[in-house]
C-alpha cells in the first residue's frame, strides 16, 4: 500500500459492475484501527463511475494500510476493476479534473436527459453551460429588433456568430463520439440484438424465454425486486403480458392476492426469500408455494402452485 494515501482523497475507481444497479463502494483500513473497516459508496450508472471525494471524510486519515473495492449483491455478481487512482486535493488537481471532465467525450448515461441536477457534482450548472445560455439569451434579446437592425445597420448583420460556432463545434464532436460509443456497445443488428447487448441483457433473456412459453394472453406476472431499474426493465420486457409491479416504491402485494398459475419474476431483493426445501417464496406480505421455471444471473422466474 503506498504511503501517504490519506493525503490523496480524490479517488477514481475505473470499475464496471456487471449488474447496473449493484451497489459499489470502497473499503479501507487504517493502521491505528486495524480491526475496523471503513467504507464509502461509489456512485455509478451504466458502467460509468463518479469521482469519489473523501476530502471531508474524517475516516480517510492516518495511515491507510488496506484498500478494497466492494460490490453488493448476490452470488454470481461480478465487477470488472481496471484500476483505482488517488489524487491530492489541490486547486490544480480540481481544476485539471474539471477541465478534463468538461473536455472529455463520454457516452450517454441515465442523467444525460436532464439539463442540470441539483446536488450532483458533475451535473451542476457548469461555467460552459452558463456562458452558452448567456450568449443565447443575449441573441434572443436582440432577435425581436433584428429585422430593423439588419436593415438599418448592415455592418452588424453577422456579429456574434463566431462565438456560437465554437460552442457548437465542441457539442457536435461530443455527439459524434457518443454515437460511436453507442454503435460500439449495441452494434447495428435488429432490435433483438440491441436488447441482447444492453445493460439489462439477462433480464431480457429471461423475460423472452418466459413469454415464449405462454399461450394465455391474460397470464399474470408479478415482478418483485428492490432495484427500480431491474424491476422496471423486467416489467417492460414482459409486456404485453399482464404485469404487476410498483415502479416507484417497489411495494409487493399481499400473498392473498396471488393465485395459482401466476408467475413471479424475481430480480435482486433483500425482502424476498426462497425456501428451497419447502418450495416457498416468503416475504413480509406472506408466502406462496412456487416452482422455479428459469434462472439467469440472479433473476428467477417462479410459477405459483397449489
Amino acid at each position, binding site marked *: 500500500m503506498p504511503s501517504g494515501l490519506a493525503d490523496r482523497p480524490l479517488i477514481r475507481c475505473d470499475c464496471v459492475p456487471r449488474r447496473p444497479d449493484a451497489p459499489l463502494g470502497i473499503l479501507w483500513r487504517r493502521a491505528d484501527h486495524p480491526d475496523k473497516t471503513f467504507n464509502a459508496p461509489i456512485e455509478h450508472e451504466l458502467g460509468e463511475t463518479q469521482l469519489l471525494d473523501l476530502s471531508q471524510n474524517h475516516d480517510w486519515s492516518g495511515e491507510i494500510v488496506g484498500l478494497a473495492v466492494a460490490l453488493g449483491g448476490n452470488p454470481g455478481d461480478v465487477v470488472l476493476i481496471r484500476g483505482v487512482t488517488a489524487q491530492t486535493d489541490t486547486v490544480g488537481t480540481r481544476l485539471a479534473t474539471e477541465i478534463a471532465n468538461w473536455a472529455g467525450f463520454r457516452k450517454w448515461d441515465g442523467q444525460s*436527459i436532464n439539463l442540470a441536477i441539483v446536488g450532483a457534482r458533475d451535473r451542476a450548472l457548469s461555467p460552459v*453551460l452558463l456562458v452558452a445560455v448567456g450568449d443565447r439569451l443575449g441573441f434572443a434579446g436582440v432577435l425581436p429588433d433584428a429585422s430593423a437592425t439588419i436593415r438599418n445597420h448592415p455592418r452588424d*448583420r453577422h456579429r456574434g456568430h463566431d462565438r456560437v460556432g465554437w460552442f457548437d463545434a465542441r457539442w457536435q464532436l461530443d455527439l459524434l463520439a457518443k454515437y460511436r460509443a453507442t454503435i460500439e456497445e449495441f452494434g447495428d443488428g435488429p432490435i433483438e440484438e440491441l436488447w441482447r447487448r444492453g445493460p439489462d441483457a439477462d433480464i431480457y433473456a429471461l423475460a423472452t424465454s418466459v413469454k415464449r412459453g405462454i399461450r394465455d394472453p391474460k397470464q399474470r406476472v408479478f415482478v418483485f425486486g428492490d432495484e427500480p431499474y431491474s424491476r422496471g426493465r423486467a416489467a417492460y420486457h414482459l409486456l*404485453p403480458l399482464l404485469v404487476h409491479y410498483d415502479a416507484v416504491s417497489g411495494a409487493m402485494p399481499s400473498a392473498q392476492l396471488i393465485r395459482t398459475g401466476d408467475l413471479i419474476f424475481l430480480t435482486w431483493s433483500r425482502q424476498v426469500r426462497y425456501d428451497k426445501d419447502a418450495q416457498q417464496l416468503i416475504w413480509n406480505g406472506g408466502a406462496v408455494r412456487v416452482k422455479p421455471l428459469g434462472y439467469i444471473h440472479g433473476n428467477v422466474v417462479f410459477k405459483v402452485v397449489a
Partner: protein
Amino acid sequence: MRTIELLLPQVFALVGGTLAVRLAFPAGRASWLCALGYGYVVGQIFGAVGLYISGTIGFGVRFLPAAGIQVALCVLLAAVLRGWLRRDSSVSQAVPALRAQGVGRWLAIAFAAVMLLRVAVLGLEATAQPLYPWDAWQQWGTKARVWFETGELKRFVSPEEWLQISSGTGDAVYTDANPRYPPLVPLIQVWSLGPTRTWDDSAIGLTWAILLGALGAAMTGQLFRTSGYWPLAFGAAYMAVSLPILDTHAALAGYGDLPLSVMFCLAFMAAAVVGALPAQREMPQWLFSCWPSCRSSSDRGSSGRSRFFPS
C-alpha cells in the same frame, strides 16, 4: 421491406401534413419551409389521433385504418382553414426580402448545412439503441408497447387498482409508473412503427429526430417571414436546433418533452405572427404569469385519461 414500412408513417406525416398546411394558407402566408415544419407536426398528431379513433371505434390500433383517418383529417383541416382564412385579412404579409450576398449568403448556406448535419447525426443516434431514458420505457413506451402488440387501447391503472381489477374476469388492465398519462405521446410512438408487426423501440427515435428538424424548418420559415433575411432566419433556427438539451431529447428519444416543446414553440411563433401575443415590453410579465398554469397543467397524473394532449 421493413425499412419501407418504417418510412411509411414518416411519409404520411410529412406529405399529408405539409400539403394540408400549404393548401390551407393562401400563397405568401406560409412558405414551403413553414409548411414542412408545421405540416410534419400536424401529420404526426393526426396520425396519433387516427390511431386513437381507429382503436375507439373498433378497427384496432392499426396503421392502415389510422392512415385513412389521418388523410381525411388533413383534407378536413385544409378545407376548413382555407375557407376560414379566405374571409380573414388580419394576418400581416411577410416583410420584403433582403438580398443576402457575400458573407451573408455563405453564412446562410453554412447554417442550413450544419442544421441538416445535426439532425442527421441525431437521427442515427436515436435509432441506434432501444428506448434509453427512464421515463421513455417506464411510462410512455409501456403504453405504446401494449397498444401496439395487442392492437387495442388497453386501460392503464395504478398497481393497487390492477390488483383489484385483474382478480376478476373483466378486461385486461395494465399498470406502469404513471398510468394516468395521456395517450398522445405513446400513440405517436405507435404511429412511428407504421404497419410493422414487431415492437422495435429503436425505430421510434426517427420521429423524435425529425420533430427537431421540423422545428428548425418552421422556425426558419417564420423568421424569414418576419425578418426577410435568410442568414438571420437560418442562424436563429440553428441556434435553437443546436441547443444541447433539445438535441439530447432527440438523441435519447421517447420522452414527451421534445414533441411538446416543438408544438408549443410552433404555436408561439404562429401566435406572434398574427399578433396574438402581448407587446414586447409586456412579454416578461406575460410569460411569468403563464408559469403557474404551465406547472399545474404539467401535473399529468391528476388530469385523467379523458385528455388527449399532455401539457
